[in-house]
C-alpha cells in the first residue's frame, strides 16, 4: 500500500505543496497537517517543509517547536517513525532537540539560492536507506541560516555514530565538516538544508532529490515503520 506522508504546515511554511507534489509523483499519498493539529494517526512518514515558520522571529524554528503538532511529532519520533525536516524544517527539529546542533547565519552573510552538489555519507537513515555512500546528487539550497554548528564533542560523535547524512561537495555556507544534513542516533529523524523536493523532475533541472525521497518512502512503507504514532 502507498505510504502516507504527513506534511506539517506552520504559519509561514511555503514548501508544503512542493513536497506533496514530489512524494505524490513517487506514488505516495500526501496529507497536509496543520500545526494546530495534535494527531498524526494514519501517517507513515512526517516531513517538516521549508519556509519561514512564524516569520523566523526570535530564531528560525524557535516558536514553531511549541506548536501543538510538535508533541505528536515528538511521539512519532520516539516510536521510531521516519521524520525529515527540510531547510526550515531542519531548523525546527534542531530547536526541538530532536536533532543535535544548530543552524547559524551563513558565513558570508549571503542568502544562498543555488544548486549544490551533495555527497551522501550514511546509508542507514530514513532518507538514505539503501543509497550507497558517496552517491553524488545535485539538489538546490535556498537559505540564509544554514551554517551547521555544533560543539567539537558533538561533531566527533556525529562522525563516529554515522549520523552525517549528506555533505556539500563544495561548502557554500561555512557548515562544520561540510555537513548538509544529519540524523539522530537511531536514524529515523533527519534534517537537511537542501531541498530534495525541488530536484524531483527533469523540468526542474534535476531529479536527484527523488533518490532521497524514494528512500524515505521505502522506509515509511516498511511494516512497523509507524505502527506507532
Amino acid at each position, binding site marked *: 500500500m502507498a505510504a502516507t506522508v504527513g506534511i506539517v504546515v506552520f504559519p509561514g511554511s511555503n514548501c508544503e505543496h512542493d513536497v506533496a507534489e514530489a512524494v505524490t509523483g513517487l506514488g505516495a499519498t500526501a496529507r497536509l497537517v496543520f500545526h494546530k493539529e495534535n494527531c498524526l494517526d494514519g501517517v507513515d512518514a512526517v516531513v517538516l517543509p521549508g519556509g519561514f515558520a512564524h516569520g523566523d522571529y526570535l530564531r528560525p524554528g524557535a516558536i514553531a517547536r511549541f506548536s501543538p503538532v510538535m508533541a505528536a511529532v515528538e511521539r512519532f519520533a520516539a516510536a521510531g517513525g521516519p521524520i525529515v525536516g527540510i531547510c526550515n524544517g531542519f531548523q525546527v527539529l534542531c*530547536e526541538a532537540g530532536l536533532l543535535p546542533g544548530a543552524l547559524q547565519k551563513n558565513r558570508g552573510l549571503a542568502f544562498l539560492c543555488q544548486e549544490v552538489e551533495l555527497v551522501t555519507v550514511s546509508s542507514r537513515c530514513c532518507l538514505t536507506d539503501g543509497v550507497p555512500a558517496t552517491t553524488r546528487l545535485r539538489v538546490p539550497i535556498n537559505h540564509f541560516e544554514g551554517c551547521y*554548528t555544533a560543539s567539537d564533542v558533538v561533531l566527533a560523535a556525529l562522525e563516529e555514530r554515522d549520523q552525517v547524512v549528506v555533505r556539500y561537495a563544495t561548502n557554500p555556507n561555512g557548515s562544520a565538516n561540510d555537513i548538509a544534513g544529519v540524523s539522530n542516533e537511531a536514524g529515523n529523524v533527519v534534517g537537511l538544508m537542501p531541498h530534495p523536493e525541488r530536484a524531483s523532475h527533469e523540468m526542474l533541472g534535476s531529479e536527484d532529490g527523488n533518490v532521497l525521497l524514494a528512500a524515505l518512502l521505502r522506509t515509511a512503507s516498511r511494516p512497523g515503520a509507524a505502527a506507532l504514532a
Partner: protein
Amino acid sequence: MAVFEVLVEVTLRPGIADPQGATVERSLPLLGVRSVSGVRVGKAIRLRVDAAGEAEAHRVVVDLCARFLTNPVIEDATVTVLTAG
C-alpha cells in the same frame, strides 16, 4: 506582587563565529576608526514580569531564556532586572 522590567541580552557563546560582528568590525576602517575591535552582535529583549520580588522575576526570565529565548547550543544570555514598576 510588583511589576519588574527586565532586560535580556543574548550573545553568541564564546568560540561561536559571529559573521555579523566580523562584518561590522571589518567596515570600521572605512569610517576612519582603528581603535575598536572585538565586535560581537547580539540582541536585546525587554520584558515586564509580575513577581513577588526581584529574585523571582530574575528566576522566571532565566528559565525562559533556557527554554525559549536563547538556543543554548550557540547563545548565552545575561538577565538584568532593571526596575520595579
